[in-house]
């Protein structure tokens, strides 16, 4: 029995050794994607193209404009002389943000009153629009507070009635600088592994079915479970290698800290790989051709990605979708991988995720093996 599994393994690696493009596909795209994700996948907003129309032309309005531009959050896209210019720039997508400082702005401030500021945002990308708007509020608020303080000091109103303010002392744990790269890089490891391993497994088995070698193997004395082990073990090993490489790139290049126990991550990775191998195997049992496998993979992997909490918070999803996330192995693996990387916690905190992953993997594997046996008829 072990012999036949070994023969399959040898054959599999022989084919891999001969297939230059397969080796390339295994190594280069994950690294490239890791680097791309590391740089491109970020929630932070910089250099929002902005149009500012200053109708007040006062010292105060120029100071506020300066505060916006100095923050590096906003970049001046085009000059504006009229309100129409601002509207046109946003409509033509020349600018995402339009700020209008109305006439009389400084006068109101000097009287110690609230001065309005008109902001026009292109909400097409709601996420970055909200974030940009947040910065506008923050900068304008800071400006207002400083101005009020200066005004109070100058006019001597401070004696007697001090300005009351609440100060929030913020401390972010695990990722003190709120570096979104730290959040994404571990997630990318899980996502890339999922996509690579499901694809590899499904394609490898469907290819054998397509060219007729599957049937040829099955007329030999090999047992179905021997075939399954011999066929999935190589991808399990490749999966471990891939996680190590991508994690290595993330740590070496993006300086993401690894604070936990590597063995805990290894355990989680093994459970996760079992689940992904089972998904690949399941897909291979319903597909006759590699083309079908391609579209099925797309159909399965995209929802898994969206429901995993990779970038969209699960807590904000409608209840039905939240329930669905419970059967998504990527959901648990992302928790495990982020927690071992950033929080440094161990099994004492991660056992629920480990159990869930193990249960999902067991159910999927059992279903895959049963379906695979049936699909042979």
């Amino acid at each position: 029995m072990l012999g036949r599994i070994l023969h399959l393994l040898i054959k599999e690696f022989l084919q891999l050794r001969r297939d230059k493009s397969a080796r390339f596909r295994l190594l280069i795209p994950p690294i490239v994607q890791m680097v791309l994700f590391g740089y491109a996948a970020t929630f932070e907003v910089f250099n929002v193209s902005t149009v500012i129309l200053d109708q007040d032309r006062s010292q105060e309005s120029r100071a506020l404009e300066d505060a916006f531009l100095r923050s590096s959050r906003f970049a001046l896209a085009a000059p504006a002389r009229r309100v129409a210019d601002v509207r046109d720039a946003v409509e033509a997508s020349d600018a995402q943000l339009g700020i209008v400082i109305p006439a009389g702005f400084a006068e109101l401030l000097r009287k110690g009153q609230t001065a309005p500021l008109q902001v026009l945002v292109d909400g097409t990308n709601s996420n970055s629009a909200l974030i940009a708007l947040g910065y506008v509020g923050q900068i304008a608020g800071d400006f207002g507070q400083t101005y009020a303080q200066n005004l109070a000091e100058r006019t001597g109103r401070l004696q007697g009635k001090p300005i009351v303010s609440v100060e929030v002392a913020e401390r972010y744990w695990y990722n003190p600088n709120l570096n979104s790269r730290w959040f994404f890089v571990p997630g990318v490891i899980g996502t890339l592994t999922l996509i690579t391993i499901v694809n590899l497994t499904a394609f490898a088995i469907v290819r054998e079915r397509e060219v007729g070698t599957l049937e040829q193997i099955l007329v030999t004395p090999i047992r179905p479970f021997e075939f399954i082990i011999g066929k999935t073990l190589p991808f399990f090993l490749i999966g471990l290698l891939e996680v190590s490489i991508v994690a290595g790139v993330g740590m070496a290049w993006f300086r993401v800290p690894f604070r936990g126990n590597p063995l805990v991550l290894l355990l989680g990775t093994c459970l996760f790989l079992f689940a992904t191998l089972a998904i690949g195997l399941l897909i291979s049992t319903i597909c006759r051709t590699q083309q079908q496998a391609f579209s099925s993979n797309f159909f399965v992997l995209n929802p898994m990605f969206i429901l995993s909490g990779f970038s969209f918070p699960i807590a904000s999803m409608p209840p039905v979708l939240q329930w669905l996330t419970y059967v998504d192995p990527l959901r648990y693996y992302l928790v495990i991988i982020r927690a071992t990387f950033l929080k440094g916690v161990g099994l004492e905190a991660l056992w629920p995720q480990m159990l869930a992953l193990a249960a999902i993997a067991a159910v999927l594997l059992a279903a895959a093996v049963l379906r695979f046996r049936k699909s042979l008829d």
Partner: protein
Amino acid sequence: MTPSAPIVEAREVSKRFGALVAVDRLSFAVPPGEIFGLVGPDGAGKTTTMRMLAGVMRPDGGQIVADGVDVLAHPEQAKRHISYMPQRFGLYEDLTVDENIRFYADLFDVPRDVRETRAAAMLAASDMLPFRKRLAGQLSGGMKQKLGLTCALVHTPKVVLLDEPTTGVDPLSRREFWQILYGLRAEGVALVISTAYLDEAERCDRLALLHGGRMVHCDTPAGLKARMPGAMLEVVSPEPRRARDALAGQPGVRGVLLIGIGLHVHVDAAGRSAGIAAALAAAGVPVSEIAEVAPSIEDLFVALLDNAETPA
């Protein structure tokens, strides 16, 4: 035909796909050293029968025994002695000739030295020795099929199942292929072959005529020919299509088959040639010769299936 104990036997084997009955209570037994042919039109159940014999498809009913082992109860054990060669043998095109042979030999636990001698002998017999290091994907169609046969036979099976193995293979390779099959027969291997080529059917020791999943006839080629009712007339004519039209509906004519030089006319009894000649003359079809001939397998096939469909 030897009366020795069969080495592969199907007993009342049935298989249905939904409402379709692909194989219907099929029974036959093949002794060692016999080439047993399955012939029949597409959809007759040939491939389904082959796959059930090979143990890759479970029948819905019946029993299959290979070399004394129940294939359904102990498939892994039975498969050791069976070889299955489908229309297109599953080769790994990115592995070399040698690597393919080695892989299939390993799956059958063939010892290394046995593999080496057997592979060398078989490759030599099929003129494949110079190509051992070539990738299977770079072989010609005929060479691929010969490599497939080598892989399929490397474990010295007692039962060889061949499902239309020479479809799309050039005539020269086909002849070599049959030389190998005759060699196996001489070694005492039981061979079951399905074929769409009726000249190949003629080479079998016994033939089973399948239609709609059922065995219509089973006999030696000569025995089957003797079963054919009536007689066969060969009409040599430069205008066979006009001749066919002229003969349609003539008394005593059961069927007409176009052949290269004219027609084969199946008539209900000997002595119809005068009537046929008269009918053709009346229609003005030029005819150079009308003679009674021994039926070919193809004639037989058409006549027997016609009979099976419309039982008199």
